[in-house]
C-alpha cells in the first residue's frame, strides 16, 4: 500500500484522515499515485495538479524520504521506500500567506 500525507485543507475536502492508503497498480510514480488518489477521491481533482494542464500547483511540493521530489518527472519511479509503504509521499503546501 502507498501512503500519502495530505495538507489539512485537502484532508477536509476529501474527508480523509492524516494519511491516505492507496493500492497503486503498476509502476509507482507521482502520476500513478496522483491518478489513483484522484480516482478514489474525485474532490481532489484539480487541487494538487492543474485540472487542465496536469502541472503540479506552484504552491505545493512533493517530499519523500527526506528528498524534494517536486521537480522530478511525474513518470519517474518514486523511491522504493514509498513503493513499499515504508515511507509516505508527502504533499506539502508552501508556508506562505495567511
Amino acid at each position, binding site marked *: 500500500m502507498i501512503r500519502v500525507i495530505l*495538507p489539512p*485543507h485537502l484532508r477536509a*475536502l476529501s474527508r480523509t484522515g492524516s494519511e491516505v492508503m492507496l493500492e497503486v497498480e503498476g509502476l509507482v510514480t507521482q502520476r500513478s499515485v496522483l491518478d489513483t488518489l484522484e480516482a478514489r477521491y*474525485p474532490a481532489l*481533482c484539480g*487541487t*494538487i495538479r492543474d*485540472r487542465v494542464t496536469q502541472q503540479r500547483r506552484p*504552491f505545493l511540493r512533493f517530499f519523500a524520504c527526506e528528498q524534494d521530489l517536486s521537480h522530478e518527472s511525474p513518470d519517474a519511479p518514486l523511491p522504493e521506500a514509498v513503493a513499499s509503504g515504508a515511507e509516505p509521499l508527502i504533499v506539502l503546501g*508552501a508556508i506562505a500567506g495567511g
Partner: protein
Amino acid sequence: MSTVRVLVGTRKGAFVLTADGKRDKWEVSGPHFAGWEMYHVKGSPADPNRLYASQSSGWFGQIIQRSSDGGETWEPVGNKFAYDGVPGTHQWYDGTAHPWEFKRVWHLEPSLTDPDTVYAGIEDAALFRSTDGGQNWQELSGLRQHGSGPHWQPGAGGMCLHTIILDPSDPQRIFIAISAAGAFRTDDGGETWRPINRGLYSKYIPDPTAEVGHCVHHIAMNPSRPGVLFMQKHWDVMRSNDAGDSWQEISGNLPTDFGFVIDVHAHEPETIYVVPIKSDSEHFVPDGKLRVFRSRSGGNEWEPLTKGLPQSNCYVNVLRDAMAVDSLDECGVYFGTSGGQVYASADAGDSWAPIVRDLPAVLSVEVQTLR
C-alpha cells in the same frame, strides 16, 4: 412568515445568516469551507434550497460546491474550466500580450428557471455554463472570441468576469461585465456578443471612449425593468435606458463617484444604492464615514444614509458583489465590508444595524427571500 437567508463569502470561509421577516434577530452559521476564499455563494431562484459556491485557494485552486438543502450540507462538483480552443492572449498590465490562464471563479449565476443550470464568470475573463448542476462546464466562447479579447486587460484584482445578469423577460439575453474590458450583451443565448460601452468615458485608457477597455465594477438591474441598467464604473456611476446600447452619467452630487457596489430597490426601480469609495488609490470610504448613498430618482440626486453606520474612524471598502436586496414588502438592503461587518437595513436603507461585526473580509453578499 417569510424568512431571509443571507449568503456571505469571505476571505476565509462562507457564512449563512438567517432571520425572520422582521430581520432583527439573526442566526449565524459557519464558517463553511473554513480557511478558503469564498468569492461567491448564490441560490437558485428556481429552487431556493439549491446553492452554488465558489471556493478557491492560491494553494489548491478552484472548487465548486453545491448544496441541495439550503446550505446544511455541501458536495464538491465539477471544477474543470477548460477554455474552448486555443485561448490566445490578452493585454498584461504593461500592455504586452499575455496568455489567457484560468485562475478562479468570481461569480456564479444560477438560471432563473432551472436549478441545474448555472453560469460562472471566471478570471481570466470568460463565461462558462453548466446544465447538470455544476458537474460539467462549457465555455460560451463567443464572448471571448468576439474579436476584442487581445485588447482586454486586468484590473488590479485580475482580469475577471464578475457580473452576470440574466434578463427575466428574454431568456436569450444576458449581460456580463469584465474588468477591464467593459460590458457585453448577447441576444442569442450566448452564441454571439457585442460590447455595450457607448457613453462610457475612461481617462485611464488611451482612447477614453474606446469600444472596450473600460473598468466596469458592477451592473445592477431591477427585474421589472430589464432594459434599465445601473453601473458603477471604476470612476462614474452610469445608467442605461436601452439595455446598454447607450449610457449616461448619473453621479450627480455623490462625494466621489469611485466605488464597487451598486444595487436597485426590489420594488422601486428608480431607487438605487451605491457606497462611494474615496479613490482608486485609497480604497476606503471618504472622511472615515461609512455612508450608503441612495437615489430615489434613478440617479443624479443622492442622499447619504448614515443611521446605524459608523461615522468616524471607519476605513473599510465594500467590494463589487458585496451588496444585495431582499424582496420583502419593506425592501431589505445588505452589504459586507472589508472589515468583516455585514450590515442590514430592514427599511430600504433608512436605518442600519450590523448582523455580524467580526467576520473575515467580506467578498460577496447575496440574499434569498424565503416565503
